[in-house]
């Protein structure tokens, strides 16, 4: 294979590489650094780790933020409830999204494009609008309660807003397209002859699904699940707008530490722990995506 761009390659590579290093990777070092700092009434509101005075270099690492997080159950609860919500969201998206992706992948070729666009359209329109749409539905005077009251299923409005239920349904709603797309991309490449062969060999359709389709769509399942799970862990807008004040999620805790308490070191410590939790899923996602791309490249 011929090498493209024999000269100037390095220079070209350096532009996006440098941008991402500076604006995406290096900032995490500052997060780590400030998580070992102390809050101070100053601008910016934290004490520098390294201070120079009277010919002394003072380096002070404060682990107080982390011990505080370990001791105050509020943080552990928030991490746990975030993980719980993220896992449930992923599972529900998979349950709802897999049959959709499968049906689209098996539709006639001329209709696939339209069906796929119908999945993508909500993703393109505003995220905030999609959350807001549910606020109107779940309200005590909202459409769901009105319908239930009118048909006499309930005597007084159900409390749907600001519950675990509202957070869950809005999370599934907003994240569903992220599950369907990689699943579709994977399932559409499935060779139909494999299923025919399975059926010729006496497999019932559901057996063929379990033994052929499901294992072959493993990459898509993992990629889709990670695409939903990782951002869901740190979700802030949804718990803020439709969630309960009691069941805190960690994204909201981070936000409150930063914007309400002006405690940057604590916000940085919360972030550091969240990053540590997410490194593994991100690496997993990255590997699957590279594998799927390599498969695509091998076909050409």
């Amino acid at each position, binding site marked *: *294979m011929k090498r*493209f761009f*024999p*000269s*100037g390659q390095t220079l070209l*590579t350096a*532009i*996006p590489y440098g941008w991402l290093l*500076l*604006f*995406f990777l*290096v*900032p995490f070092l*500052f997060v780590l650094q400030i998580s070992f700092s102390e809050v101070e009434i100053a601008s*910016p509101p934290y004490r520098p780790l390294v201070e120079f005075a009277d010919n002394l270099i003072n380096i002070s690492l404060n682990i107080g933020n982390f011990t505080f997080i370990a001791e105050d159950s509020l943080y552990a609860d928030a991490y746990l409830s975030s993980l719980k919500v993220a896992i449930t969201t992923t599972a529900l998206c998979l349950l*709802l999204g897999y*049959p959709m992706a499968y*049906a689209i992948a*098996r539709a006639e070729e001329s209709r696939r*494009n339209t069906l796929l666009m*119908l*999945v993508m359209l*909500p993703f*393109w*329109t*505003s*995220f*905030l*609008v*999609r959350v807001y*749409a549910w*606020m*109107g539905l779940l*309200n005590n*005077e909202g459409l769901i309660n*009105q319908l239930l009251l009118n048909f006499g299923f309930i005597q007084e409005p159900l409390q749907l807003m600001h519950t675990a239920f509202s957070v869950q349904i809005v999370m599934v*709603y907003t994240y*569903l397209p992220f599950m369907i797309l990689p699943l579709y991309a994977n399932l559409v490449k499935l060779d*139909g*002859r494999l*299923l025919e062969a399975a059926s010729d060999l006496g497999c019932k359709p559901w057996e063929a699904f379990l033994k052929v389709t499901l294992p072959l769509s493993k990459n898509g399942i993992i990629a889709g699940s*990670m*695409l939903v799970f*990782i*951002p869901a862990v*740190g*979700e*802030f807008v949804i718990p803020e*707008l439709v969630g309960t004040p009691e069941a805190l999620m960690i*994204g909201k805790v981070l936000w409150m530490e*930063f*914007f309400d308490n002006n405690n*940057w070191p604590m916000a940085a410590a919360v*972030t550091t722990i*969240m*990053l540590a939790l*997410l490194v593994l899923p991100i690496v997993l996602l990255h590997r699957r995506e590279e594998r799927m*791309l390599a498969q695509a*490249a091998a076909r*050409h």
Partner: protein
Amino acid sequence: MSQKISWFGKTSLGIGFFFLYAPIVILMIYSFNASKLVTVWGGFSTHWYGELFRDEAVMSALGLSLKVALLSSVMAVALGTIAGMVLARFGRFRGKSLFAGMITAPMVMPEVITGLSMLLLFVQMQQWFGFPEERGVLTIWVGHVTLCMAYVTVVIRSRLVEMDRSVEEAAMDLGARPMKVFFVITLPLIAPALASGFLLAFTLSLDDLVITAFLSGPGSTTLPQLIFSRVRLGLNPEINALATITVFVVGTLVIVANRVMARAEKKRRLLAA
């Protein structure tokens, strides 16, 4: 393997699409509600659309958002195209997997993390170099470019990977210089991907709330920030009107773009065959 969709497939698509679209349709219907109470129907009216266009805070936030989105998506397409070429065409080099990882990560990284860490970088830079002097359009722009370029790269990279390379190779065999091959052959061939990358970047930037909240300063309020601050206080008929316009504009744009690209793709295939 195309065939008729089974009843199970039809049912799941039906349920899925109902779930995806019913809330948006209902929100749009209620934007034409005369009553100030969003959920109580008080007759048909376009009153709130008028209010919306007279709302100066909304209009100036919209102006800022459009400006940021345009600036960010142009830069994101430029950087994303280079990054896509690097990943799809440049072969192996040291640090490639870190690079590919840094492309994937911003797309899934919870935005509170990206926003906070970028802010801390800017604060540190400000202390060391006195630049950027304050948070505002520039810092928001950097944040949006970083987020959007990742998406653009993925779109362009997958197009390049799936593309037939014989024309590029023929041009090189005939002695065209790499730069010329790129601008004369590759770029026109990936034009649809560039267009969808641009559209994606533009809408992502227009929609971003969390990263913007960390990186914006006083006096730079984008449209999502304004919507968020109002929606926090509860339902608001003006927001219904604004949301309806957003869905309508973005929807039309995406459908038209999709049609145009599908047609271009068909033509390309016919020519290739």
